[in-house]
């Protein structure tokens, strides 16, 4: 029982990281911290895949002539290379959005921003009642 619990400790770490990441994304109100959480969440998935690819006593999958060589599965590593690229793109886009939000709103706290948005929204509804359509071609 204990050995099997410890034997899958990689998975424990994966799900611990996953939950930490997900908690940061959902629980934090700071836009920057959400992105940190997202990065941790994605990294945990990378670890999950890498764990699948590992075979006990497996060597790197480079063909040699010995008959009884056990190779590790290279496919998860390749998939994760792709996923890392996607993750970097997501983080970069997220950070640049946070930068723009900060310059437009002067804050990256969700509460302050949604309060500003609510005021803006009601302003729009109010001002739209005063029509001043001009001649447009």
């Amino acid at each position, binding site marked *: 029982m204990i050995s099997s619990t410890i034997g899958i400790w990689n998975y424990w770490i994966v799900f611990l990281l996953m939950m930490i990441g997900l908690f940061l994304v959902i629980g934090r109100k700071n836009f920057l911290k959400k992105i940190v959480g997202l990065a941790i969440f994605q990294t945990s998935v990378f670890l999950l895949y890498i764990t*699948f690819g590992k075979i006990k006593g497996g060597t790197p999958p480079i063909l040699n002539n010995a008959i009884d060589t056990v190779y590790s599965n290279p496919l998860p590593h390749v998939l994760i290379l792709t996923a890392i690229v*996607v993750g970097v793109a997501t983080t970069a886009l997220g950070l640049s959005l946070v930068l723009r939000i900060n310059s*437009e709103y002067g804050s990256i706290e969700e509460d302050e921003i949604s309060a500003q*948005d609510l005021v803006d929204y009601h302003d729009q509804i109010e001002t739209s009642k005063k029509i001043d359509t001009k001649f447009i*071609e």
Partner: protein
Amino acid sequence: MTDILIKNLPILVVLCPLMMSLIVVLIPNIFLSSLLTFASTFVAFIFSILLYQEVQIHSTISYALGNWAPPIGIEYVIDKVSIIPIIIITLIGFLTTIFSSKVMPDEINETSISKVYSLWLLAIAGLIGLVTTGDAFNLFVFLEISSLASVALVAMGAQKDKQALVAAYNYLIIGAVGATLYVIGVGLLYGITGTLNMADLSERVVDLKNNKALIAGFGFMIVGIMVKAAIFPMHIWLPKAYAYAPSAVSVLLAATATKASLYILARILFSVFDIADNLIINTLSYVILPLSIIAMFAGTIMAIYEKDIKRLLAHSSVAQIGYITLAFAIGTKASVAAGFIHVFNHALIKGALFMAITSISFYIQKRVTLSNLSGLGRAMPITFFCFVICSLSLAGLPLTAGFISKLYLIKASISADGLWIAILILFSSALSVIYLWKMIEALWLQQPKKEIIIKENPKIYTSLLIITFLNIYFGLDASFVVDSSIEAAEKLVGVSK
């Protein structure tokens, strides 16, 4: 020559917009970049028509990417199911590109237009790829290509309204969590089956009934896709993203983005897994069915109380997605067919409604709300005409495309012993008349507060007229949509029901 073209069509339809997006970004001239975008989306549309003909002959086209034979290599599959979303995406993509050429410069400054068109093509390419690919992990890559491009497109709305930035940010975070959940699911399935090819996967999961990793993997995949398809509790990113995106982008996203994800949902539920499996039956009847019914009402009620028109239409989209997933959840052949019919028709209806609202906001140079619509219907008769036709189509009045989808949906639910579902559908459609009537009343019956003279521009209303025409055409002669949807449902649900 034509042989090679036909043989490579499945990849060409993806590559055409993908490669062109790299070229378009380098072109500083607005006219040239919009022309190239138009050309590549048009070519993609022609390719999808050719593919449709091929599918009629060969039924399934499998394309081995880089000549690596599946299941080891990545496979692109075009069959009678995937051809429907491909036609929708390319058709709407090409119509909205015509539309955008006039509307886009109004909202986005000139220096960034070619970049926007590049993202535009990337989003379209990602969506087409999403539908074409037969590889579970390749699907994730296309999912991210399309969603990152759409996030950037939504954020371009910040030049008019800064709320677009927050909308884009939320879309990015929620979408990325969804995509990552999908990857976890794929990983778990790969861990127990050792394959990523969907066709191969469906053969191998049969032997693994009640395997806990399989159930967990399935759950992760479905939830991930549900986030992307904006199914009820995961829809919160949608209204704001659609409302604050640049108008042309709203049209493109509203008509295509969720449709591709809905197709993936159907593919995973019915094609990778088996409809006869208890796991799927329970998921459909205890998860997707209740959520769809809540979505139908929640979306409609939110729309009734909304004053901002773009948000109103986005909330209504949530309700319409509810109809589609409801059709999938009933799980009979007729209902899945009805779901696909509505996928097609809703793309036409929502595309046209967003286009009409966009033209109005183009002329009045403001966010369109219920109060500033008053009397505009008389000033812009063509736009108003299209708007009314498509509203009727959304509500499901006879002689419009929306009627056909409601008809088949209700017929399917009654034949599956779901009379109460049919009644709920009718009730929710009746509720949707309330918000549609509010808009039409404001447009036509209220007196304008000031004399308005608007000269409608043919560049803007041409594609609106085309989509409206299609709405009426597919209401009168629905055989194309209905036949291909029934064939698709036969392929998915098969003989088991």
